[in-house]
């Protein structure tokens, strides 16, 4: 039994550590300008009692009082309509938020407010009545409210109604039985939609989510019981509510202000927002790493301790810092990172914010860049003979000067360049991402770029073999300006240095022509459309010959028939036979006309007419012939 217990404990520990390692941090939060914008939206002049309520109460949630409180108070008093529960609610809540603004209500009004608390009113009406009574300092029967709310929740099972019920319950006496209503927080939280593990919100929208958050924390604080929301869920709610930085309506802005106030000042959860001031970059000129560590309303957590748990180099995985605290100055937490003399590159910081047990998302990962300035040392240029018979002559050039004499290299020689790149302050050798050698022919505008590579001792070498590289240069000889280009994300001073001029002589030179820059945007040659060529036909003579040839058997047929003695002496000249022959001839003629002029439909039409006539006539004629033959044979 004890073995099971210990293995369970170990797996639980591993699980908790795993959770801790992947804790969510807010990706959407309000910055100072957003809070100012929210305040500006809520400070708009009042149009009616409802907008006055949103403005006054919203600003009080942000910790700001309304501009002219006397003006606001008289506006509220002037616009309150004692017969409307809603108006009384707005007036009561708004006057509560303004100091020394009191509204007096008559006994009838008070009774109507009490009457509104019943199972027959909607949750919204109950909420407004209870809030008004509470803000006006009038007594109310909490247990009646609870039972009315319970009855209404079962009938109105939507998110907005239950949120209002939670908000109402937070105004009741602590002795009332609020347990069942408290359970609604968990049920509502289950209805939230998880979007990609980043957002948690109701499908009803931003306002509903924000009002839920403020109601849930209001009730939880009232009964002093932690709301059933996990830390990751709280951060996801923060992402949802504060992802929108400009608000469509006053009610939306009010709901965001409510939620922000609830999340920055409740007894259980306090989400922390850690962000770097400007880009997270340090260098010798700016050695301080500065962080904003604030709550969701962008107020610095002055009482917190901010600590670097570990800072490791991304490239070498070496730990530079461990358990180093930040110092607070003017609301910003600072650390002099350059004091630890880090090499240039990227560092992964693991920052912890402690000091308050309510803090949520208080472990943050940050990527910090350390920049430096590069210095170019020992730039040596030389022209080396390929057969190495003549000794090399090395010229040293100091940055940023240009080599005085030009270097001449023809096809028997190589041009060579060596140099070192070091950190200006520490002298450590650097290997930046971009080290290019550019040769630019000023006359033709041609440029060729090569890469200079470091050897094992971090000494950069560049060699130009004139004969080998002639294709890159198009064999155009002349004076080329040699530039060295050095760049990297961690360099503060990228370098473009005209080191010297190099005269290159290529063998087999063609007549130098200015390089045509490839202009892609000139009109292209026009394409002529080629119509389909008609097929080749045989010569007309051949066709005519064969036509005659093909028709010739007809002559043969006539001759044969003549020889056989076929005749038309039996032709009867009866009307049907005449009609038949005429019709038949007409059909053959129709075939010809079809070939030359008509289409199938017309032909079929004519054929139907002529054909039926011919058929009838032919039928008659053949019948007569049959009778004749029959009588002849049976005589």
């Amino acid at each position: 039994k004890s073995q099971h217990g210990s293995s369970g404990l170990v797996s639980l520990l591993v699980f908790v550590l795993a959770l801790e390692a992947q804790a969510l941090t807010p990706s959407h939060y309000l910055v100072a300008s957003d809070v100012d914008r929210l305040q500006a939206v809520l400070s708009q002049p009042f149009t009616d009692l409802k907008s006055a309520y949103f403005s006054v109460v919203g600003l009080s949630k942000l910790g700001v009082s309304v501009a002219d409180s006397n003006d606001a108070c008289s506006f509220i008093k002037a616009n309150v309509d004692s017969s409307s529960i809603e108006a009384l609610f707005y007036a009561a809540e708004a006057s509560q938020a303004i100091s020394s603004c009191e509204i007096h209500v008559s006994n009838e009004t008070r009774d109507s407010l009490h009457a509104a608390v019943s199972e027959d009113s909607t949750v919204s009406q109950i909420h407004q009545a209870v809030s008004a009574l509470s803000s006006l300092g009038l007594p109310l029967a909490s247990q009646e409210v609870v039972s009315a709310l319970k009855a209404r929740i079962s009938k109105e099972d939507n998110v907005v109604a239950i949120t209002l019920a939670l908000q109402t319950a937070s105004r009741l006496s602590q002795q009332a039985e609020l347990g069942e209503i408290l359970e609604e927080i968990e049920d509502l939280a289950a209805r939230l939609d998880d979007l990609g593990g980043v957002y948690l919100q109701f499908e009803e929208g931003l306002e509903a989510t924000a009002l839920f958050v403020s109601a849930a924390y209001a009730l939880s604080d009232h009964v002093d019981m932690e709301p059933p929301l996990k830390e990751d869920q709280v951060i996801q709610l923060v992402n949802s509510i504060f992802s929108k930085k400009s608000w469509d309506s006053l009610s939306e802005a009010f709901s965001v202000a409510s939620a922000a106030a609830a999340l920055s000042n409740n007894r259980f959860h306090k989400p922390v927002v850690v962000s770097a001031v400007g880009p997270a970059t340090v260098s010798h000129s700016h050695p301080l790493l500065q962080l904003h560590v604030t709550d969701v309303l962008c107020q610095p957590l002055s009482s917190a301790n901010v600590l670097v748990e570990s800072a490791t180099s991304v490239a070498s995985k070496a730990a530079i810092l461990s358990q180093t605290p930040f110092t607070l100055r003017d609301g910003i937490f600072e650390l002099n990172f350059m004091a630890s003399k880090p090499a240039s590159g990227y560092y992964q910081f693991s920052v912890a914010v402690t000091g308050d047990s309510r803090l949520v998302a208080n472990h943050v990962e940050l990527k910090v860049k350390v920049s430096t300035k590069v210095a170019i040392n020992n730039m040596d240029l030389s022209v080396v003979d390929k057969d190495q018979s003549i000794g090399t002559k090395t010229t040293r050039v100091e940055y940023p000067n240009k080599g005085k004499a030009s270097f001449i290299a023809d096809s028997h020689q190589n041009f060579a360049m060596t140099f070192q790149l070091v950190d200006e302050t520490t002298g450590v050798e650097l290997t930046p991402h971009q080290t290019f050698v550019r040769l630019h022919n000023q006359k033709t505008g041609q440029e060729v770029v090569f890469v200079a590579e470091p050897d094992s001792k971090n000494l950069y070498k560049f060699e130009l073999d004139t004969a080998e590289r002639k294709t890159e240069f198009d064999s155009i000889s002349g004076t080329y300006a040699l530039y060295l280009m050095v760049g990297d994300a961690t360099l503060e001073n990228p370098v473009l240095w005209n080191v010297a001029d190099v005269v290159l002589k290529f063998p087999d030179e063609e007549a130098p022509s200015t390089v045509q820059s490839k202009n892609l945007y000139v009109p292209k040659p026009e394409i002529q459309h080629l119509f389909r060529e008609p097929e080749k036909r045989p010569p007309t003579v051949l066709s005519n010959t064969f036509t005659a040839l093909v028709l010739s058997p007809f002559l043969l047929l006539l001759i044969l028939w003549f020889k056989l003695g076929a005749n038309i002496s039996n032709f009867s000249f009866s009307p049907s036979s005449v009609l038949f022959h005429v019709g038949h001839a007409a059909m053959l003629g129709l075939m010809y006309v079809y070939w030359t002029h008509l289409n199938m439909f017309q032909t079929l039409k004519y054929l139907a007419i002529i054909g039926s006539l011919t058929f009838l006539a032919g039928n008659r004629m053949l019948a007569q012939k049959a009778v004749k033959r029959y009588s002849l044979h049976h005589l």
Partner: protein
Amino acid sequence: MSSSVISVISRFLEEYNSSTSTKLKVVDAYLLYILLTGALQFLYCLLVGTFPFNSFLSGFISCVGSFILAVCLRIQINPQNKAEFLSTSPERAFADFLFAHTVLHLVAINFVG
């Protein structure tokens, strides 16, 4: 060898001339005409090429179809075959021949282009 072939052929021709009625000989002459026409069309196609192919097909199929229909007519009007064609009189055969030709010509003219 060749002499026996010639003697067979001459014998055949003699028999043909004597035993075939004139009416059938008329139809046979017609058959020969159709045959020659078709053969000449085919020869042209072999020599010159198939362009235009649809015309060649139309003409050739027309000849073949006519030949077949004429053979049917010959079979049907031959009095020696009367036993097999009790219900078909020669007039009826001829009427069928004409009707079939109408359809054949219609299709051929449609296809010749």
